């Protein structure tokens, strides 16, 4: 994180102006949970092992993040077997898809607001 003195000046607040960070969802605005939503949004469903390896998480940590997202209604977790091997599949819900889109839009807007100030 860069020091505060390096920050570009914030645009002056206007009536009705809202800082883009106000739109950030605490459940989604976490790197690994955002990664889970991004991968499951790309595929119809993602297997636990793929998510663990792609995100560099331990099984325990991935389970914790999945529990947070599942309790928020953003993903659905399906447990099954492939032969004798247990498999856990994660599927994004419409709510999760909407939250992901909102988060990415907020981040993009945040970036857009800061980029011109740096160029100036």
């Amino acid at each position, binding site marked *: 994180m860069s020091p505060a003195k390096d920050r570009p000046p914030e645009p002056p607040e206007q009536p009705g102006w809202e800082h883009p960070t106000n739109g950030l969802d605490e459940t989604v605005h976490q790197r690994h949970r*955002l990664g889970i939503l991004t991968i499951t949004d790309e595929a119809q469903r993602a*297997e636990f092992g793929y998510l663990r390896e792609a995100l560099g998480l331990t099984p325990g*940590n991935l389970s914790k993040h999945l529990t947070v997202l599942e309790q928020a209604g953003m993903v659905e977790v399906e447990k099954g077997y492939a032969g004798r091997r247990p498999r856990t599949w994660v599927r994004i819900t419409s709510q999760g898809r909407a939250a992901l889109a909102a988060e990415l839009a907020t981040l993009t807007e945040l970036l857009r607001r800061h980029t011109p100030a740096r160029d100036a």
Partner: protein
Amino acid sequence: MSDDESDPARNEPSEASDGAALLADMKALRRRARTARHAYWFPLVLFGLLTCASVPFYVLPGPPAGGTEAVSGGPSLPVLGGFAGFTVQHFLGYYWLAALLGGLLLTLLWYRWNARRVGLATPARGYVVTTAVLTVLALVIPLLSQVRSPRWLSWLQQLSVLWPGDLILRGTFPFLIIAAGLWVLAWAERSRALTVIAAAYTATALLASLYNIENVLFRLGWNPSGNDWSLTALPNVLLPAFVLLATGAGAFAVQRPHRARP
């Protein structure tokens, strides 16, 4: 991406620079997942091989005597098998019915197997449903014109006019069904490359349906005589097959390095 959950504050960027890094990370994750789940080389090669296997059904039985010979007797499937007189092999329609449905089943099994292997599933259901529905419609609509249906169902018989005769004349309509499926698959795979392949194959399928490609070979010097006349319908089959096999082989070469799990 490291596992630094022990300090959640580090994972919650509030700066634009962190936001840019986060967006770049998500873009990379999405690109990696998309590359890993791409598996469309299989249906391309499969339907290319099924097209090659259909070649015996397009071989004309003998030299033309005032045109190609027509077969007689027994029901045929005109939309899938073409009109007698142009495709004389009577079982072409039945071959394509079995090949399309069997190919769909194998493709569905392939995508399920690939999902288990890679850990990412591609939504192939739309592709299967689209191709299956088109195949069934191609089977059913000509039959509707032969049966006497209630008045309130007469509109179904009118659907038969939706099949332009030229497209089904040469027994190449199954290529257009395959092409329609490829467009849906390109959407499901979110692949620009497959979209380009679908466009190229559609153009080839339309050409094979509307034009006698052997005319080009005649101009290039092919002068069939005797039994060679029985092969004159084959360019219309082999060209679409070549497009599928060549692009399928290319896709296989590209997708092979990504087939290992991350």
